């Protein structure tokens, strides 16, 4: 059932078995997974069914450090489906090596990749990703000429699967609305979470109109993104005079992202034709799910060198400015053509789709769209490619979230201040990884690497991937983390977190698939706990 929280009459009681804060990918997955259990569930969503400026304004905050192409107001979304509403859809699980490692004196993942595999597999259905297959050997196109580098023990091809992308709000709205046991409270923002002495969890909420409510439940799950889940926890502790989850002083610490940017150009010794890695084409698919290919150091090579994880997306570069302009026009036309086709067959194209604009893009770029493949067939090929990194950022206490004592949002919660500064060590790791690729390219007679010139930019030209992770890290010990391996907040009764906030390290993987997998793991745990 969908409930408009702005109303004051004719509403259901606010006593539930479970309250879930946040109706994004984690919250909706959890509610959907528990729908057949008979548990009474409240799913709280700050916004409505569609985008709304006033709800979105609750996201406003400050970034200290690297704010290039980054703002807190629009890097996540507040309406049904949450940030999945502008999700790009690249998916891959964390690598096995990510579960072996601990950085900077912190603990690592309190579980193995093998133990998470069944949940990854189930998460594939939620994210519309087809079969749970990522091994390049299983998915590689037959023609070896489509690869850049041969298999070596040091470098391998990573596979990313492309979600449509799944808009969780659109996909599950009708099922949620039809459920009698799940109440989706729209326009209802959580402002305080408390564990009462009798082991009842309390969530206080407020609407933009000032309507306040108190929800009680046997368990509460904070299923918002890292920033909002952490912000609510920090503010709740402050209001309650408690330090739930903060025995080790780690609540709000160790914020991580995947720093992203240009690492190097790979100049070919001879011009090359199309390869599977070209990030601007999605020709390859597995069971209808588009695949993307990237280069990465193998787990074995990472162990040898001590380098953190990361992958390099490959963008072919035309050689001169005029050719680059022509290629950009051709790419724009192709993107628009795909959007128009998707729109025509009724697929999701996002809220900002303008059919007139996209159609005219196709018409204006038609000549280049035709010319580009002909030129490639004539042997034009490419002389160089850009290697764009998406790197593992290692946890650092200096990166984190705190509350702004001088600014509150419309429901009275202090605004967030995010400190995010990718370090010189992070940059050096990217550089060393690119050098490793350069060695392999030279050994294969493919070409030479020219590293990017970052000049005196303190953040080496890196930008955010909008992957907000790590401020409520999971660890077995309360001194080493905020939650345990199930996501239960250390020191709180039945308060859980289903969010990228719980990641103790981030590997190279785009996080949504792992967030959904961890949520499914938590769902299994809650089925047992709440049934008992």
């Amino acid at each position, binding site marked *: 059932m969908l409930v408009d929280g702005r109303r004051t009459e004719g509403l259901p009681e606010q006593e539930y078995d479970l309250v879930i804060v946040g109706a994004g990918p984690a919250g909706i997955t959890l509610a959907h997974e528990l729908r057949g259990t008979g548990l009474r569930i409240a799913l709280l969503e700050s916004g409505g069914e569609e985008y709304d400026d006033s709800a979105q304004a609750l996201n406003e905050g400050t970034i200290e450090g690297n704010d290039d192409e980054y703002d807190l107001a629009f890097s996540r979304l507040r309406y049904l489906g949450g940030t999945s509403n502008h999700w790009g859809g690249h998916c891959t699980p964390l690598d096995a090596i990510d579960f072996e490692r601990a950085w900077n004196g912190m603990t690592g993942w309190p579980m193995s990749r093998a133990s998470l595999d069944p949940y990854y597999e189930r998460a594939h259905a939620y994210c519309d990703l087809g079969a749970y297959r990522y091994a390049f050997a299983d998915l590689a196109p037959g023609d070896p000429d489509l690869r850049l580098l041969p298999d070596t023990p040091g470098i391998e091809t990573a596979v990313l699967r492309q979600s449509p992308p799944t808009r969780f709000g659109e996909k599950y709205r009708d099922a949620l609305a039809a459920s009698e046991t799940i109440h989706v409270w729209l326009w209802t923002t959580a402002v305080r979470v408390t564990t009462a002495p009798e082991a009842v969890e309390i969530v206080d909420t407020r609407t933009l109109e000032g309507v306040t409510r108190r929800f009680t439940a046997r368990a509460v799950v904070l299923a918002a993104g890292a920033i909002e889940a952490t912000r609510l926890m920090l503010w709740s502790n402050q209001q309650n005079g408690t330090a739930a989850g903060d025995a080790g002083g780690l609540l709000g610490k160790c914020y991580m992202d995947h720093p992203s940017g240009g690492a190097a150009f790979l100049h070919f010794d001879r011009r090359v034709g199309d390869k599977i890695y070209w990030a601007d084409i999605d020709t390859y698919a597995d069971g209808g799910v588009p695949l993307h290919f990237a280069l990465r150091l193998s787990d074995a090579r990472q162990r040898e060198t001590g380098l953190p994880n990361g992958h390099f997306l490959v963008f072919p570069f035309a050689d001169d400015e005029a050719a680059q302009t022509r290629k950009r026009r051709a790419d724009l036309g192709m993107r628009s053509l795909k959007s128009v086709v998707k729109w025509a067959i009724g697929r999701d194209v996002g809220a900002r789709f303008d059919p007139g604009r996209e159609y005219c893009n196709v018409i204006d770029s038609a000549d280049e769209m035709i010319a580009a493949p002909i030129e490639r067939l004539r042997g034009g090929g490419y002389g160089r490619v850009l290697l764009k990194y998406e790197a593992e950022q290692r946890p650092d206490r200096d990166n984190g979230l705190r509350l702004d004592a001088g600014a509150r949002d419309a429901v009275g919660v202090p605004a967030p201040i995010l400190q995010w500064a990718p370090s010189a060590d992070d940059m050096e790791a990217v550089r060393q990884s690119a050098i490793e690729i350069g*060695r392999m390219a030279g050994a294969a007679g493919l070409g030479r690497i*020219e*590293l990017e010139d970052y000049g005196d930019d303190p953040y080496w030209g890196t930008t955010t991937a909008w992957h907000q992770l790590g401020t409520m890290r999971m660890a077995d010990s309360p001194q080493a983390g905020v939650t345990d391996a199930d996501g239960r907040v250390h020191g709180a009764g039945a308060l859980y977190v289903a969010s990228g906030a719980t990641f103790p390290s981030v590997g190279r993987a785009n996080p949504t698939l792992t967030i959904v997998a961890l949520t499914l793991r938590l769902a299994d745990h809650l089925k047992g706990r709440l049934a008992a």
Partner: protein
Amino acid sequence: MSGVKRRWLLGGALGCLGAGVLGYGGSVAACSLHERRTALIWPLLDVLGDVHAPERIGRAWRDVETDAEIEAALLARGDLAGAALIAEPLRRRTRLGELIRTDFAKGDTVVADRWVVTRLEARLSAAWIST
């Protein structure tokens, strides 16, 4: 034309030819007295065909090693001398390419002005500039 004597014309032509021969011969003689390592370096410059910015790399590497150090290092590589002695250009280039790929595979690489190249490529680029 009547004013121009045939012998003047022939004498002038022979004079120009003689000056050319003397100039070139003198230059060759002078250069033979100037100590250089062209016999070693020139056959190896085939390597630079795959180096995309030899001038940038060479200038950067000259800040790392002196000409004498570069020369000594090149002379110390027996496999390099073997390749340099191959007279047939295509075979020599193929052999040098193998050496370079092997160096890459062994990790004998440097970063010179942001280019990831083998140490050998960096040295030859520097030697090319110094030659």
